[in-house]
């Protein structure tokens, strides 16, 4: 077996493990919905049995870790098994304790990440250079970075963001699948235009930026769902008992999305500038409105808009979240459609 064949085998193994992780995360989400529903039922039952004049409109938080210091109606855990069965009215967030499927999901993600990393390294060794010089390799390394950023954030963040695993493993799985099936090219030497130290820096920083922006996108999507749910709660409408009840509130999600996204934005700014410096050496001008440059610029401007929206009255919250979603869509557009179908100087897909 050549190194490249080993790399491919590792990619397929990683994909298999990602698939297991994805299933585990999906089961966890389903379980969250069930917990939210049963908690709500329990609360309703307890309120009914106590005949307490509960103020349903006032959301309060009860959970294993938060003491019930609020003024709302306190529901006693009925037949409480574990931390998950205590809850208040529909408006409450539900504490969500240990979940075996979630732990399986994270463990499998770590395993898949290790396989993925090994695949990436062997591909680099097979090529004798950094493994991000054509579209297959961008996808391989880019998805590796998305997973890495996710795992890094799990370690660093104070909040439990494991619920994002469904999105992360799903995205990585889809992108890896497309890459191996449609974009695969065997190892070929670097064309002269790519023989530069900037290949190492510019492309790596760009893929890292994508990793952070992907996470920001996922958080923004959940933020929008959560905020919709909160609005319905505030207007006392019947709310479907979903897994959202077990997740942080929309303001927390928004802050998390913002923090991840600004890191991505700074990396993207650097990508743009490193690209300009490289373009000056390779093409004789630092900026020439090549299609890829245009889209890099568009992405930068959209995320600049996102950051400004966060500081503009009336734009904070859902509107800025939409900008983050549009921003990541342009990133994906830039990576796929622009690479494959637009004519330009960045013709390095190898396809």
């Amino acid at each position, binding site marked *: 077996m050549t190194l490249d064949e080993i790399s491919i085998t590792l990619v397929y193994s990683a994909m298999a493990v990602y698939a297991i992780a994805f299933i585990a995360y999906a089961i966890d989400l389903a379980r969250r919905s069930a917990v939210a529903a049963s908690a709500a039922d329990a609360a309703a039952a307890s309120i009914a049995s106590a005949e307490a004049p509960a103020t349903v409109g006032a959301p309060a938080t009860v959970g294993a870790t938060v003491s019930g*210091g*609020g*003024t709302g109606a306190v529901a006693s855990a009925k037949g409480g098994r574990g931390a998950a069965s205590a809850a208040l009215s529909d408006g409450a967030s539900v504490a969500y304790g240990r979940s075996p499927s979630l732990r399986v999901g994270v463990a499998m993600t770590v395993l898949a990440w290790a396989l993925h990393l090994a695949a990436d390294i062997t591909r680099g060794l097979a090529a004798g250079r950094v493994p991000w010089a054509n579209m297959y390799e961008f996808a391989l390394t880019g998805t590796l970075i998305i997973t890495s950023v996710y795992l890094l954030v799990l370690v660093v963040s104070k909040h439990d963001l494991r619920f994002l695993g469904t999105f992360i493993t799903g995205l990585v799985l889809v992108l890896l699948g497309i890459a191996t099936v449609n974009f695969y090219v*065997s*190892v*070929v*030497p*670097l*064309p*002269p*235009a790519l*023989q*530069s130290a900037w290949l190492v820096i510019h492309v790596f920083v760009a893929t890292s930026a994508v990793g952070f922006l992907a996470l920001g996108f996922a958080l923004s999507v959940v933020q929008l769902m959560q905020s919709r749910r909160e609005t319905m709660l505030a207007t006392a409408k019947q709310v479907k008992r979903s897994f959202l009840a077990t997740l942080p509130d929309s*303001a927390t999600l928004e*802050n998390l999305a*913002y*923090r991840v996204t*600004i890191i991505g*934005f*700074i990396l993207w*700014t*650097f990508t743009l*500038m490193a690209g*300009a*410096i490289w373009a*000056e*050496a*390779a*093409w*004789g*001008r*630092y*900026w*020439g*409105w*090549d*299609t890829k440059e*245009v*889209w890099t*610029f*568009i992405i930068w*401007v*959209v995320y*600049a*808009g996102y950051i*400004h*929206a*966060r*500081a*503009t*009255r*009336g*734009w*904070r919250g859902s509107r800025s979240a939409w*900008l983050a979603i549009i921003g990541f869509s342009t990133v994906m557009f830039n990576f796929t459609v*622009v690479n494959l179908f*637009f*004519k*330009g*100087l960045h013709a390095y897909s190898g396809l």
Partner: protein
Amino acid sequence: MSPRSDPGALSRPDDHIDSPEPSADAASVTQPKLGFTGWVRFAWRQLTSMRTALLLLLLLAIAAVPGSLVPQRSSDPNGVTQYFSDNPRLAPVLDNLQMFDVYTSAWFSAIYLLLFVSLIGCIIPRTKHHFDALRARPPRTPARLARLAGYTERALPEGETADAAITRAAAELKRAGYRVERYDLRGEPSVSAERGYLRETGNLVFHTALLGILVAVGIGGGFGFAGQRVVVEGQSFVNTLSAFDSFNPGRFFNDANLDPYRLSLTDLEAVYETENQKALGQPVDFTASVEITGRDSDETVDGEVKVNHPLRVHGTDVYLLGNGYAPTITVRDAEGEVVFTDAIPFLPQDANLTSIGVVKVPDGMPEQLGMVGFFYPTQTTLDSGAYSSSYPDLVYPVLTLNVYAGDLGIDGGKPTSVYTLDPSTMEQLTGGATGVDSIELMPGQTQDLPNGLGTVTFEDATPDGEPNAADGDYSQSVDRFASFDIHRDPSQGWVLVFAILIIAGLLVSLFIPRRRVWVKAAKRRDGQVVLEYAGLARGEDPGLDEAVAAFADRHAGPAPAADPDHAHDADDAAPASSEGSVAPESAGDPAKPTT
């Protein structure tokens, strides 16, 4: 701009989230009629508002899109020509909308110029305000710290007076980079501290540097030029206006500034992949070896131009942007006299360097002669019988020529491309429908021209003494040409400086937290003195709570774990805050003006 109720508030546009809410009255009051200045002020306020800036930003992103969908004259002029011939009806319409020059179009320029005006309108008052803030003292300690973020309290350390504890807190905060100010309110000594002024500095640097880039590109770029020149091995070029094949001067460029140095191409080496079966013939390296001679000296300096490694010489940058073959073709008349001999650059058409070139023989023949040539560095014959090249290097080079006789159309003084031949005023003599075979030559070979016009020779360019075509070695039998871009852009260094400032400003403005911290020795009703700590985030500041807690721990020791008496004290001190738990959720929330 609008008056501020809080002198400490950041000077931002009215609709910035940190600005005070507009009072409801203002909207309902019937506005007096605006005079001219009133309207100008109104328009200025609108333009410099956050909402306008945001909309302009989004508009800019949208306006940039068409430039990637339609070929642009600046980056892809051939694509534009192609687009016109493919879409003869749509193209003129798009052209009227400046769709082929999006990034210099009136509408695109209008958006970014408005954006930058809006930016200036934001930067100037903020700079002034920030300058004032840098000299102002941190604001008075609020009466009730318990309402603020990260509120925590500690017992006064044994044997220390309230005053001494506050003095020590002030010193420690100062050491930690805070600007501090002592206050003594109603007998309660306190220290008010603020840090992170760099955040706003970074923000202003970032936005000013953006402006700097625009100015550097817009004005500095006008003094430069970009020229293209094809040079065949063994030939040279002098950096003067007339020597360029094409030349794009900046707006303020003066050709007297061209330094007429001489650049000679001694060798162009092309290396192609030969080992990897999946990448046979892929280019691995191109190196142009050149000699540079200055205007006033006979000394020549050797230089090298590679892809990604431009040669920076005499204030210009020389780039190797293309290369190909330049077969040397000699034409003799019926008497055997040489009427034409030159190395003709053939333009590559595909990865294996099948190339097309045109030979124009204006004089010395009964009629002007034109030849359209195809060059195959490694010729193979496809199943269809057509020729093709299977490898980009010189293994089996073949040149085919179709001969035309008539009027080349170059006598009228009309500029024509050396790479195209207009056959409309000429008669085809070989190839195509003529029934006469095209002339087919390998290096060193000569063939007769049709109609007894004379002969044409494909010269073997192999240097003397090396194995040449006659020996069956074609590896050096055809000269190569290099396509050089020669640029001068005096603004480039400035753009780089501003780009670095942008990154630096961005990092500082997004990651340095601007925060206020207060420490107060509060006297409880029972006479006990307790140290209170609280903070205020000014802008995004996720670490505020921890920072306050960490400072309190450092200053007065760790918090006693769940002391019920202690909690009771807190309630006592802050009766207004019913839950005593407003703080945690305010992390990252915008600063509310407090006085």
